[in-house]
């Protein structure tokens, strides 16, 4: 059983230092790499009196943990300017946005369009699934392999994904391990 949350739930969370207990920023958005199957970083807003858009970013490697109530970093030095971050975090490619992209099985069936990313709570940003607007209508959740093929505006998933479409996050949490075991990934 895994505890999961969506990228939408991460937006607006405080970024808190483990060593200092201070809220040093707030999550504005996630920077996602479908090929790597994980967040590569977060864009940030300022907190408190000077609240508003911040230039600074947080690389996934500097994330201690993504939780349900806060994104944890060891200390304030984890937050850097775009110039001090890797290119994929400091200057992310706009075509990286997968929301609205088609999810196709290798056999050519469309499962729907990506509505949100699903992350593993407690990790530093591992994306284990998507929330999708199903081709036949309604919302669903699909597990992902650790890495994903991207083809134009379509994300290509293994054929067995069709058997693992879930109605809610709890169902997805229970199925991720079995899905990856079936693919021989864990």
């Amino acid at each position: 059983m895994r505890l999961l949350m969506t990228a939408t739930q991460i937006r607006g969370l405080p970024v808190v230092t483990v060593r200092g207990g201070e809220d040093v920023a707030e999550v504005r958005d996630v920077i996602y790499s479908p090929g790597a199957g994980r967040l590569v970083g977060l864009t940030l807003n300022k907190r408190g009196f000077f609240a508003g858009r911040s230039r600074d970013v947080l690389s996934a490697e500097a994330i201690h943990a993504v939780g349900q109530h806060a994104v944890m970093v060891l200390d304030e030095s984890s937050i850097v300017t775009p110039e001090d971050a890797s290119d994929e975090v400091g200057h992310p490619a706009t075509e990286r946005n997968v929301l609205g992209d088609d999810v196709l099985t290798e056999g050519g069936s469309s499962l729907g369009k990506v509505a949100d990313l699903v992350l593993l709570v407690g990790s530093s940003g591992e994306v284990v699934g998507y929330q999708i607007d199903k081709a036949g209508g309604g919302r669903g959740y699909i597990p992902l392999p650790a890495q994903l093929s991207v083809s134009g505006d379509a994300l290509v998933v293994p054929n067995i994904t069709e058997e693992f479409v879930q109605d809610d996050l709890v169902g997805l949490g229970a199925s991720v391990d079995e899905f990856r075991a079936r693919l021989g990934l864990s």
Partner: protein
Amino acid sequence: MSHLLVDAQQRRIDAVVVGRGKKAQLVDWAQLSGFGPDAVMVVDEGVLRPPADDRERAAAEGKLELVGKRALSEGGNELGELDDVTFDADSGVLEELLIGVRRVPAGSLLGSGSYAAILDQSQEPSP
């Protein structure tokens, strides 16, 4: 006395804040001659000193008070509110943190600041 200034990494009380706001002063724990249920005793007024840095100024303003603080796990999940702390009155070393009905060993405290007290992963409820 209004606040305790805690060194979360050392898990001990550094100083006691006396008074509030701009008039607040500190007494280092080592300078206390007694700590009882009704009063904190000092040898004379000479041990009172003004805040020396940003951390101590934040403590004087009450921002770093541990009791009443949100408790967060290092995994980023809320554990409740820190209702009270117990400590050794001689050394100032923290012993336990009380979060609701839970008694957490002070060794689990990783950090503490104006936003939250951070506890290690062993305090995380299992999903």
